[in-house]
């Protein structure tokens, strides 16, 4: 009995240690293994079948890891975490990572599909020449509303002033998006650092606030699907997903312009499989692949050759595919650096106001 139990306890500990060693082992010999591409991205952001296709075509393995915010991803890499070959941060974060010397230049001879990138998009992009980043997916921040409930809809930020919608309207709990909307409404740049312009925009948001149910980032999606809210400020990618459930929802981009956000494909300095990462970027911008991926994510890959191949519902949506004229009025959120504090001050006043 004693020997038996001794063996059990001993073998349990032994087993645990053995498995622990096994866990450690692959870390040592990963270099010798077949080609592996480590992608660090948002969950459900690449269609799984496309990954399988890339693996088959390139005789490699693609391993996806996920992060949930640009800031957390940045903090982790900044502290020294390595091992990722391709990352998809939002444009403003790409600027910061570039300034910190964390990403490597792209070798465009390895990415012939770069020729398909929408030139209209590149005009407003931060990295216009795609030296360090290629755009992956864009989303517009605009207005979603219920067609049957909101009479006389106008595609304008002025909708947030409409008294008949009082208490059934929501704006994003996001300093850059919401003050940015007011700046656009006033005809200013949404990347302004001019304190006078910010003050005026702050006053507009304060006026809107009296009309709002709340500032909110997540629940607005279910809120408009269920009809609790009639008009919400939100991202086209999210709204398109919600619209699958409630066909009464429409999305519009205000005529004054608004934000276009883009997640970019970048290769970190420490990447071990840089060549494979270039091949994957090129693959994602194959027009057919880009169209298929757009149908999966409901975000739009800014690949002009892919546009005609996209799903009709997305392709024909004027809130998603903006006219060149409207697109020219839209802006990408830029990293504000030290001027961020000016925005925070205005935003704090807005949030504190009754």
């Amino acid at each position, binding site marked *: 009995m004693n020997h038996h139990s001794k063996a059990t306890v001993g073998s*349990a500990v032994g087993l645990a240690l053995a498995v622990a060693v096994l866990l450690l082992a692959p870390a040592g010999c990963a270099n010798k293994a077949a080609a592996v591409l480590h992608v660090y991205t948002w969950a459900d952001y690449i269609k799984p079948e496309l990954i399988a296709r890339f693996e088959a075509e390139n005789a490699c393995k693609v391993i996806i890891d996920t992060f949930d915010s640009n800031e957390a991803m940045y903090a982790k890499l900044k502290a020294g975490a390595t091992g990722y070959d391709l990352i998809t941060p939002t444009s403003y974060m790409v600027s910061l990572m570039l300034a910190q010397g964390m990403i490597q230049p792209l070798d465009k001879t390895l990415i012939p599909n770069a020729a398909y990138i929408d030139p209209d998009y590149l005009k407003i992009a931060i990295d216009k020449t795609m030296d360090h980043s290629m755009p992956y997916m864009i989303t517009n921040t605009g207005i979603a509303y219920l067609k049957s409930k909101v009479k006389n809809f106008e595609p304008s930020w002025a909708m947030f002033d409409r008294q008949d919608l009082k208490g059934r309207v929501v704006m994003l709990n996001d300093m850059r998006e919401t003050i940015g909307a007011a700046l656009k409404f006033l005809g200013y740049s949404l990347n302004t650092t001019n304190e006078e312009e910010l003050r005026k925009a702050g006053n507009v948001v304060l006026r809107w606030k009296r009309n709002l149910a709340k500032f909110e980032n997540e629940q607005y999606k279910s809120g408009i*699907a269920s009809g609790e809210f009639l008009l919400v400020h939100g991202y086209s990618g999210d709204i398109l997903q919600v619209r699958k459930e409630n066909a009464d929802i429409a999305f519009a981009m205000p005529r004054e312009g608004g934000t276009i956000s883009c997640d970019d494909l970048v290769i970190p300095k420490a990447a071990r499989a840089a060549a494979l990462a270039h091949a994957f970027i090129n693959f994602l911008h194959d027009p057919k692949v880009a169209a298929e991926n757009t149908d999966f994510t409901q975000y739009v890959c800014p690949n002009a050759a892919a546009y005609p191949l996209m799903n009709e519902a997305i392709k024909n949506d004027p809130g998603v595919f903006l006219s060149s004229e409207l697109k020219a009025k839209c802006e990408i959120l830029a990293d504000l650096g030290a001027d961020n504090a000016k925005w925070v001050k205005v935003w704090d006043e807005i949030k504190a106001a009754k």
Partner: protein
Amino acid sequence: MKRSRFPLIVTAAVLLFFYLPIFILIVNSFNASRFSSSWQGFSFKWYAQLLHEPEIWLAARNTLVIAVLVTIVSLVLGTTSALALHRFAGSRLQRAHFTLIYTPLVVPEILMGISLLMAFVAAGVRLGLATIFLAHVTFCISYVALVVLGRLQDFDFSVIEAAQDLGAGWWTTARKILLPMLAPGLAAGGLLAFTLSLDDFVITFFVAGPGSTTLPIRVYSMIKHGATPLINALSTILLVLTFTIVIISQRLNRTKFLEGGTG
């Protein structure tokens, strides 16, 4: 004499706050609607879709492997630590030991995550399942040690002396006296370590490397960009699993007590 209703109301409120959210989550995992605000009919579709999500299963496997290993290792280390703390209580060395064991409980998670990451990077360790395992053991030892220590506080050591008087060796004493009497503490410590490891996000996020995404990391990212109903379905499965483990462990404990009584 009329009893106060107050305890009853508080108990009911506590139970409500504990279990109502879980209940809502389970109900919504069968909701055909993608957005939980409206009920659009009963459906198993999220469970069916879950079957076709290899990345989620990989994350679940990573999580479970780590949790099981962490539980075993931190039980052994934590218990030995508690024994030392109890046996030599009061000595200067053990007071320092106690402080060291106690610290991980009060250090903010984000600080621990970043510092562990920096330590691993400085040591040139490649991030992965192994670093998550080490990080989890680091904080789980403390919980196990303190739970077992609590059990040792009212432990009657004369029983052990009696056993030794009767000729029991070190191992027999440990096996026949110490372990059975500590069993409830070990079970509590083990379950605590298991659940802490299972749902840790902050520390895990920092020490995880390529290819070692765990379920919590995956779930957080899904909330931002993906489908929440899948998370509901997954959570329901995990809940069923957890309850099953708890029920089985309670059953086992009961049998053990019976054996102890008759033997």
